[in-house]
């Protein structure tokens, strides 16, 4: 065990204490957990105040705004940006006053939602549909290997993926009753979905255990400070 300073030892002990407080939640809710919970909510909010001020607000807005105010001059582009952001930010903060003024915050929220929703329209077509369609079709068409040279296995797999994706899509079909052949297709779709969910779950176990291993390793290192 490397020599560590007293300061580090104290901090590490605090970390270990908080970790134990959180672990105690497994037994039941208790005062130690509550203390850790409240401390960490406080700290994380403080962390965010600093982070957003230092990494976003100051470089993006405050610095250019300061050059504007102090008469250092600013490009037209940045000037407009500084003013528009100022207006929207102030509108947002008017919520603190409440009443009629708070309604102006909706302008800011409308802009944010409009920007997000607008971006999503073409992007959803590209990422969620166009690329997936390419995946479905290209695996058969422009695949670098002629498809029967992969020992048949590949062609079968591609076919199965397409069956899975199309029958799964049938499950998501809302405006038709799931009966008859269509209902059977949708049922196959559900099987595929369940296989997918089961596989994902099984695949995840390892990752979750990994995290616990990491924590146990930390607790071990902490104990080694004393022994």
């Amino acid at each position, binding site marked *: 065990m490397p020599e560590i300073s007293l300061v580090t030892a104290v901090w590490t002990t605090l970390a270990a204490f908080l970790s134990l407080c959180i672990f105690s939640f497994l037994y039941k809710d208790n005062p130690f957990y509550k203390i850790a919970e409240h401390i960490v909510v406080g700290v994380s909010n403080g962390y*965010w105040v600093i982070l957003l001020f230092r990494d976003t607000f100051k470089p993006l807005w405050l610095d250019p705004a300061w050059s504007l105010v102090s008469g250092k001059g600013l490009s037209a582009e940045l000037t407009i940006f500084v003013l528009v952001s100022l207006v929207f930010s102030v509108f947002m903060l008017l919520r603190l006053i409440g009443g009629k003024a708070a309604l102006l915050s909706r302008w800011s929220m409308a802009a944010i939602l409009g920007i997000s929703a607008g971006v999503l329209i073409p*992007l959803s077509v590209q990422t969620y549909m166009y690329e997936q369609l390419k995946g479905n079709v290209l695996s058969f068409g422009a695949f670098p290997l002629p498809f029967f040279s992969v020992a048949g296995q590949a062609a079968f797999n591609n076919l199965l993926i397409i069956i899975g994706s199309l029958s799964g899509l049938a499950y998501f079909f809302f405006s038709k009753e799931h009966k008859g052949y269509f209902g059977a297709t949708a049922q196959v779709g559900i099987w595929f979905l*369940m296989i997918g969910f089961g596989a994902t779950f099984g695949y995840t176990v390892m990752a979750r255990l990994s995290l616990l291993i990491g924590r146990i390793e930390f607790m071990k290192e902490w104990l080694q400070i004393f022994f």
Partner: protein
Amino acid sequence: MRKEIPLAIMLVTGVFMAVQFFVPHEIPSLIYTNLNKTVQVVGAVALVLGIVSILSIHLAKIGKKQPGFGYSYFLIVFFVLMASSGFLPKSLNLGSFLGHGGNEEGSFFLNMYNYVLNPVQSTMFALLAFFIASAAYRAFRARSIIATLLLLTAIIVMLGRVPIGPAIFGDWIAELADWIMAVPNAGAKRAIIVGVGMGILSLSLKMVLGIERAWLGGGR
């Protein structure tokens, strides 16, 4: 006018953003970049609202001496300690337990991050190892075809993922697990992805056109 102006803003920004995707020219991309920066700034400023919300709740708790109000002191004290550290000048170094919020080794800010925020995050995350076991025990019962499929694929993939699976059953179990992940699973995921894409498109469109206006308090 309560709803008209926000809806108009939404329509204009939404249509602009959707169209600019197809326009390589630099003028729209300039506007786009700046709009995005605006969103970042507004997002940062909005944290003030959040902080006011949580602090007022806990101050009220203390004020009214509601049950458990003692814990609220922890929240407020640690918030003030952490937040103020970012605004203290670097020259004012009060040692490792108090002081400025610089990024350098041993600063109060970094220590709070490394020894308070970080371990609690990791430990909370580690609790999931226990929860995944209890969830598996509770839910993986062969009640129906669907439940059995879920159960079987989960166990096969679990065994195939760790070296001990192939050691007991032979390499086929790892290959089967990989195959399940790469083939039927990929099919299922693709179905979900396409459906989600359709849902996102429809919802975004309804937002931009003002058909979906629950965020304005619903109604027509």
